[in-house]
């Protein structure tokens, strides 16, 4: 026995064994996570430091220099009112990313809370929550948001309200389904047998076991929300001019597609790059958070 207590020398010729790595050691080995992180990191930095990154004010007009091509003064050229395209892209990113992230957090919280209540208590609570879920699910996402926006009138706060009213159902259904499984686990019974309050059982015992799915979904949900915001801007009921937004920039630029294709194409590209970045980040996060 004494010999066994000694540290074992690695035997020659045997493959080396290393225990599995934890999250901290693994994240940089997940290519999609790293790629997504770089893209989104760069975009977020651009949005945060927009006043430094932009070369001009996004709203200052210069009617003597309209629809100009790229130059050292205007890197991407100017639009039909002589505004600097690069600066507008940067500020529009700031607006869209801000709305995108905020418009995901609120539905995430509301959906998670309602999903917990419905899944854990079941019965009448579940019936009521599911009723509202079904009402929302019955309408297509974008049509319902458009309808709500028409009712509330356009503007940023209306966007938050509309997306929250519609978006919470996805989180609610996810969390509810996960809790239906988790609450049958014996550790939940053990927590009940220990006389813990329901709130403590849900928050401390069940939620940490089920929240991963929602976090991963939130990453892909931001893409959807961003696309919705841009679409709303495009059809004119989203972010209102003069505040730049990729959606209203695409809409404004489409009249000049033959003369200045950059005006619509570059905001469109920005949307695509952001979408790809967030998707990569979401996929990578799903890989990382999945139990091995």
């Amino acid at each position: 026995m004494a010999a066994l207590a000694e540290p074992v020398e690695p035997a020659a010729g045997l493959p080396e064994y290393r225990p599995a790595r934890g999250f901290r050691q693994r994240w940089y080995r997940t290519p999609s996570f790293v790629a997504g992180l770089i893209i989104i990191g760069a975009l977020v930095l651009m949005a945060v430091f927009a006043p430094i990154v932009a070369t001009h004010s996004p709203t200052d007009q210069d009617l003597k220099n309209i629809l100009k091509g790229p130059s050292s003064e205007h890197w991407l050229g100017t639009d039909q009112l002589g505004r600097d395209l690069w600066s507008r892209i940067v500020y529009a990113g700031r607006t869209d990313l801000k709305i995108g992230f905020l418009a995901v957090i609120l539905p995430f919280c509301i959906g998670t809370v309602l999903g917990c209540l419905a899944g854990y208590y079941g019965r009448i609570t579940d019936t009521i929550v599911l009723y509202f879920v079904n009402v929302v699910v019955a309408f297509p996402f974008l049509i319902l948001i458009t309808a709500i926006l028409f009712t509330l009138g356009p503007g940023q706060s209306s966007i938050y309200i509309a997306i929250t009213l519609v978006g919470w159902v996805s989180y609610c259904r996810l969390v509810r389904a996960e809790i239906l499984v988790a609450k049958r686990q014996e550790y939940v019974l053990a927590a009940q047998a220990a006389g813990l309050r329901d709130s403590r059982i849900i928050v401390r015992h069940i939620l940490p076991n089920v929240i991963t799915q929602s976090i991963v979904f939130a990453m892909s949900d931001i893409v959807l929300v961003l696309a919705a915001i841009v679409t709303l801007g495009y059809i004119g009921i989203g972010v209102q001019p003069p505040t730049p937004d990729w959606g209203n920039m695409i809409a404004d630029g489409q009249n000049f597609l033959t003369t200045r294709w950059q005006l619509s194409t570059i905001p469109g590209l920005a949307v695509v790059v952001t979408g790809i970045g967030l998707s990569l980040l979401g996929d990578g996060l799903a890989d990382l958070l999945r139990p091995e």
Partner: protein
Amino acid sequence: MSSAGDVILDVRDLHVEIPLSRGTVRAVDGASFSVRRGEAVGLVGESGSGKSMTLRAIMGLLPRPGHITSGEIVFDGSELTTLRASQLRDLRGKRVAMIFQEPMTALNPVMRVGDQIAEGPLAHLGYSRSKAGARALELMRLVGIPDPDRRAQAYPHELSGGMRQRVMIAIALSCEPSMILCDEPTTALDVTIQDQILKLLLSLREEFGMSVVFVTHDLAVVAQTCQSVAVMYAGQVVETGSVHDVFYQPRHPYTLGLLRSVPDFDLVRDSLDFIPGAPPDLMSPPEGCRFAARCSFAQSDCLHGPKPLVPIGDGRETACIHPDRCAEAVREEPVIAGG
């Protein structure tokens, strides 16, 4: 039966029903037994005999849609079946604790074990976080977990089965309950660990003067740990008494059958006996004695009328109306060597 004063738990004529679409399962159908203060009682029976359901009914944690339809559960002077949910919750963990069969699934996989042990004192005793943490370490030392300050940081999957069951015991002990219900606490463990855990439970019971209810199908565990035993069959308690009396002189043919089907290295018997047939369907249990169809002593009067537990002296009870038949059989062939 001793005086009511030192009885901590008295279950009387407990009925639990589980309504299903195919019909109503009478999972517990008239179970009666009592536990004295500081005593360990074994609740034995085969799978589906209602032992675990009885425990869950005591805790007020029956799986839906199961519910208690009639009967009394008196714990420490209070009737549990009529308590409100919040009153029951205050009782659980603080005065009655439960230990589960499978320590892997009964511990939260994403919570450090130290936090799980500290939860009871935080929730029930109003301890501060640092005091509850100190209490957790003290409990881990008490249940024989080496290196508690390091192990408290571990997650359940990082511990061995025996260590996890020790954590479960520490959780159960955390508020110093007066009774611990153990649902097959050692079934998932290998034999050497099983022995360690049972010895630990025994010593803790003596140290704290707790009452313990052991649900198990392992008669050896009961013989090793309990003073009294209640034998369950098809949702009913069919025999109660001290472990010594019941094991050496069973007075119900089902108990006799159980004891005869345990392998014995002292070679009193040539072959291992078994109980022929299968337990009755609990959706439509037979009238009369439920064991009659499998019983070699059964007579026509066994098939009719309810068969309640009847005292037969020495604090013993049996549901069999012909207990002398068992006595005769044991006289001819003792159940346990030297018995």
